[in-house]
């Protein structure tokens, strides 16, 4: 019998090891978020007064598009290598395989956030606090669960690059709303940080459970 935890760890480690050796995704994503910040820097009139209200929006826009690329690659690479079938032909639990893929994609996006958050501070002078990091990390977990589920669904479809954002973005809105509010408050705007973080935790639990249940059906065929 296969151990689901060992399977999830093996899948995540395999994806991270492949990324470490090929360096296909993280450098490109890091470059993308820096470019997004450069464009925003020239596109908006940002000063110390309006930075706390504008910078979070730029942060979430960059994060959403970087996330779409990161989660889309999670299953697209398996499809291109024709390895998805070999993976699913094992007796390993589809939920464990999904958990491993989602964990690896989350860690890769966190790597990208490690570039994005300090760069945001550098460009717009907004504070880089523990509260900001915590809000972004919490939102990343739920966004990764949803993003990987839809990436798995569209992996075998021809127009997957088009379908993935269409399916994923509407369901990411709760994370962007709650995460946006938490980051705005952490950067100095008025509002309740704790309430926004509680919402993020609720959304994380809800979507991680739902996607785990759905993964069995999505990956089984």
């Amino acid at each position, binding site marked *: *019998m*296969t*151990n689901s935890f*060992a*399977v999830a760890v*093996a*899948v995540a480690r*395999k994806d991270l*090891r*492949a990324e470490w*050796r*090929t360096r296909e995704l993280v450098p490109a994503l890091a470059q993308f978020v820096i470019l997004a910040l450069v464009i925003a820097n020239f596109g908006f009139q940002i000063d110390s007064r309006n930075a706390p209200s504008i910078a979070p929006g730029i942060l979430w826009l960059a994060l959403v598009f970087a996330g779409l690329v990161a989660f889309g690659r999670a299953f697209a690479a398996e499809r291109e*290598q*024709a*390895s*998805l*079938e*070999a*993976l*699913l*032909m*094992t*007796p*390993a639990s589809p939920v464990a*395989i999904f958990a491993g893929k989602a964990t690896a994609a989350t860690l890769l996006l966190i790597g990208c956030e490690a570039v994005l958050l300090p760069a945001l501070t550098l460009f717009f002078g907004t504070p880089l606090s523990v509260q900001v990091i915590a809000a972004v990390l919490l939102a990343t977990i739920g966004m990764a669960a949803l993003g990987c589920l839809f990436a798995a669904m569209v992996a075998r479809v021809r127009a997957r690059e088009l379908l993935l954002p269409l399916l994923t973005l509407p369901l990411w809105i709760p994370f962007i709303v709650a995460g946006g509010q938490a980051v705005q408050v952490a950067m100095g705007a008025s509002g309740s940080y704790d309430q926004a973080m509680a919402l993020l935790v609720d959304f994380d639990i809800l979507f991680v459970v739902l996607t785990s249940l759905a993964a069995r059906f999505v990956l*089984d*065929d």
Partner: protein
Amino acid sequence: MSILVANGLTHWFGSEVALESVDLAIDAGEHMAVLGENGAGKTTLLRILATAARPTSGGLEIMGLDALRERRRLRQRIGYVAHAPGLYPALSAAENLEFFCTLQGVSRTRAAETLALVGLASEASRPAGLLSRGMQQRLAIGRAILHDPKLLVLDEPDASLGSDAADLLAAVMSDRTVVMATHDHALANRLCQRTLTLRHGRSVGTATRLHVVR
């Protein structure tokens, strides 16, 4: 005693029929070759027998289990070599097999044993993406037997293999029930006791060794 019994296997891709009412019974330890031109339905039949695809209609029983309902249980006992090797190019040959050892729930020491069996022991640390096509095929065959399956489903396993393809395949097929698609009638005659010939998705006959239906 039949280890695999298929009744009226039919598969449609949209409005195209890929497989039509194929009946099959394979005894334990028997080696059967599936022959036919390109597009005859060999890969579709093998994917269904390996539980990688569901037929549009028809029944399939493997080792006494309903293959359409008990797919995960059966996958512990089936080894499948698909048309494409489906390896991870950034991982070494050994890492590829060790990864699948974890997914199959077998000891990682099986990886080294299997590499030796398929003649890749000296290539263990080379990235799979840098191996020749023939070596990749050997690695894919090794992956299919990691968990010591009772039933082996091989889709053109001789593709890209060198002159010793028959010896390698004979070694991995011994003591197993095998269904193998191939274009090589001589190889089919050497390794299999029986052949099934498909044409336009239909079975046009079975034959025993040296009496291949053309």
